[in-house]
């Protein structure tokens, strides 16, 4: 059991931002919490699920998770929803109307921005949602603030009848810092509010609510001006003062400990008056915000022109001390101090790889061998790594579920060059259930010629192995109904004879299945059926080894891409009338090998055999 779950009030613990939020959510009396996994937000729900007296779920996508939370809020219960920044794009349809309707039980949406893109397809600034939807935004700078602010956010939500956004970044979610926890409050469920059909957002009803939304924003602005989360940290060095929010505050304080700082925790609506009065106390004012100049733009609109921000700071990435210090020195007209003593050295890249025995490798090995005949529309998950070495077998990755719709678009917009190519879509099980099903329905309905590969590894792999509607278990690890992918795609209209379920470890089977399906001009689905090697469903088998005197150095097994296989030695074979051939003799790390036998299938001379027991 987690230490944070058992901790008594006033205990001081080392917690990540995500763990601190989970504790705060529980103390705030939340009854319903829902999310779809996404780095760096995933651990919030995993941690919340460990607490008693609340309901927590993995939803099929972020929009559904927000709707579940909204339903709970309408019913008078405090509700929480967590997602990564791009998840909010999916959830925004529900969000943009709910903001008009308001809440009964407090509703807090934690959105985790991946500043610096450690594990995302873009870098977007979720603070925009506050302006777009006229809702307050809280921005914690560390774990303690994340804990404090999530609790305060529920109060603000109920007091002002509005959903509240808690904007996090990777440096809050995945940094551990000291947190003093409190006790669980008592917040009884108030019951469903039936007054004046307030939840029925017909045009007439919704129109009537618009003025209230504008009034509410004015009231929130007043609250932000005096909020205890927006405070001046005094400083003696008044040459440059800072207005900042989120973890950027920590970097500012680290870099310029003596400078005055106005730290914004309740950062939207922007407390313009407080900033204007702070401006008069310092020589120069710099707005330090990751990533977009939102506060800066509002200040300029409020005619506070004599300020700096993105004129001296980058618009992308983290604003860490090594970024801030030189920029501020230059602003002061000084030479920046020297930073590193030792030179930067890059030995070689070490990109993320698929795990030994990963079932995705069999599919990409096969696709790589027919690369010239196929266009491959990809999706978001571990299998995005198929774009990398040694497979290079992925042409697109845009958003969750996009492999399907994009494949259809590619099919309908063929050029001279692509007219004879097959279009293949590759998607994982969790991503297919998240947002891929609709795309497949569209392919069927509009008579697309696409071969869809659903790589079912029975987990949400990239985020660390979470359950979903296709795994047979729920967030708590309890037995749950398990969707049958074959019947699902059949229900979406794919002809039964065009649906195959195959073993991705059987390379000849994979090869035959893909070649046959791409040759047929109608929608088809190939489902691979092997569990993720990191999941509870994966059985380890006897490892294999390469018998050196049987190995011919063809290098086929290297092309499988398994990290357990490496080149032990090379030999150059000279040829007179053709380029030389480099023979790659290989070896298998038996400690890493789990006996999936994919490489055995790739080996012509049968040089790969079960490892002799030591």
């Amino acid at each position, binding site marked *: 059991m987690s230490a944070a779950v058992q901790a008594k009030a006033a205990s001081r613990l080392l917690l990540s931002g995500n763990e601190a939020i989970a504790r705060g959510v529980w103390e705030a009396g939340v009854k319903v919490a829902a999310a779809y996994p996404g780095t760096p937000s995933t651990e919030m729900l995993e941690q919340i699920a460990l607490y008693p007296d609340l309901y927590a779920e993995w939803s099929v996508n972020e929009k559904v998770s927000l709707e579940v939370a909204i339903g709970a809020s309408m019913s008078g219960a405090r509700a929480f929803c967590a997602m990564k920044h791009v998840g909010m794009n999916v959830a925004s349809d529900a969000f943009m109307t709910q903001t008009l309707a308001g809440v009964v039980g407090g509703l807090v949406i934690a959105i985790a921005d991946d500043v610096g893109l450690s594990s995302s397809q873009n870098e977007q600034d979720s603070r925009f949602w506050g302006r777009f939807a006229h809702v307050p935004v809280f921005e914690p700078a560390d774990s303690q603030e994340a804990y404090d602010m999530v609790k305060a956010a529920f109060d603000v939500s109920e007091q002002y009848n509005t959903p509240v956004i808690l904007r996090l970044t990777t440096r809050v979610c995945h940094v551990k810092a000291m947190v003093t926890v409190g006790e669980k409050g008592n917040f009884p469920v108030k019951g469903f509010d039936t007054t004046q059909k307030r939840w029925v957002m017909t045009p007439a009803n919704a129109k009537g609510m618009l003025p209230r939304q504008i009034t509410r924003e004015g009231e929130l602005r007043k609250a932000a001006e005096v909020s205890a989360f927006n405070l001046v940290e005094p400083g003696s060095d008044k040459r440059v003062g800072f207005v900042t929010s989120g973890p950027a505050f920590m970097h500012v304080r680290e870099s310029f400990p003596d400078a005055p700082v106005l730290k914004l925790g309740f950062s939207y609506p922007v407390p313009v008056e407080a900033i204007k009065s702070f401006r008069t106390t310092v020589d120069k004012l710099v707005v330090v915000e990751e990533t977009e100049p939102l506060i800066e733009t509002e200040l300029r609109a409020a005619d506070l022109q004599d300020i700096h921000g993105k004129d001296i700071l980058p618009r992308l990435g983290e604003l860490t001390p090594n970024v801030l210090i030189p920029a501020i020195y230059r602003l002061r007209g000084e030479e920046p101090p020297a930073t590193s003593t030792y*030179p930067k050295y890059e030995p*070689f890249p*070490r990109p993320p790889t698929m795990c030994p025995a990963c079932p995705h490798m069999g599919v990409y090995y096969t696709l790589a061998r027919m690369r010239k005949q196929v266009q491959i529309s990809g999706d978001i998950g571990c299998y995005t790594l198929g774009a990398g070495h040694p497979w290079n077998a992925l042409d697109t990755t845009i958003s969750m579920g996009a492999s399907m719709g994009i494949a259809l678009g590619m099919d309908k917009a063929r050029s001279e060059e692509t007219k004879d190519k097959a279009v293949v879509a590759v998607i994982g099980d969790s991503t297919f259930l998240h947002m891929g099903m609709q795309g497949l329905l569209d392919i069927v309905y509009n008579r697309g010629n696409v071969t869809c590969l659903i790589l079912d590894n029975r987990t949400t792999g990239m985020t660390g192995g979470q359950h979903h509607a296709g795994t047979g278990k729920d967030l708590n690890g309890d037995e749950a109904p398990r969707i049958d992918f074959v019947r699902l795609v059949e229900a979406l209209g794919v002809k039964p004879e065009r649906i195959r379920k195959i073993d991705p470890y059987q390379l000849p089977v994979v090869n035959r299945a893909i070649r046959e399906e791409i040759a047929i001009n109608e929608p088809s689905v190939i489902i691979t059926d092997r569990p993720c090697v990191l999941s509870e469903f994966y059985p380890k088998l006897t490892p294999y080894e390469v018998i050196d005197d049987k190995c011919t150095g063809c290098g086929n097994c290297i092309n499988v891409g398994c990290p357990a296989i490496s080149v032990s030695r090379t030999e150059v074979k000279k040829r007179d009338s053709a380029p030389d051939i480099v023979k790659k003799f290989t070896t298998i790390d038996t400690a890493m090998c789990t006996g999936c036998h994919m490489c055995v299938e790739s080996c012509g001379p049968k040089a790969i055999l079960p490892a002799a027991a030591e």
Partner: protein
Amino acid sequence: MSDIITNILVCGTGGQGVMTAAEILAQAAIARGYDVKKSEVAGMAQRGGVVTSHVRFGRKVWSPVITPGTADVLVAFEVAEGSRWADMLRPGGVAMVNTIRLVPPVVSSGLFQYPEDPVATMRAAGVTVYDFDAGAIARDLGDLRLINTVMLGGIADYLPFPAEDLEEQIVGRFRARKPAMVEVNRKAFALGREAARDRAEGTRKLAANQ
């Protein structure tokens, strides 16, 4: 307590135990009453990629990130990773390096070269490196998972608190759950400490002879 902040950068590759080592360091610092921040890179990096964790402690820690050129200690679980992050050290900082070479697929397939001697590269740049084979020590003790304890033993004499505090933090974890592992962890810790001392001694002698 002084205002000085201690910065420790732990680096390695996914699955090597970088996060666990950083967590133990952080908990040892908390036990001494320090304010602590520990940052990590997660997500895709876990799939065999580069992993680092920044551990910072002192009276009051602001930024969770170590600024390049300010790390007091670099703990490298893999030798090339040590060379990748050596520029994070401050002048006079120490790199404690496990000499294991983990060759990624981009190297084994011939796209990139694994450097001949990453430690020599670091030394040529003026970095103080103490390198030893933590894997061999762990293997001799019968459990490769002890590498973590060996490496922590290696840096135990370069922290602003007694080595015994760090040892207690490691041993305490096993005392409750796996008491049989207590003694072997003590040994691993002591051997790591000894290996680092030997290397430091050897380096001093070498410098004296030059």
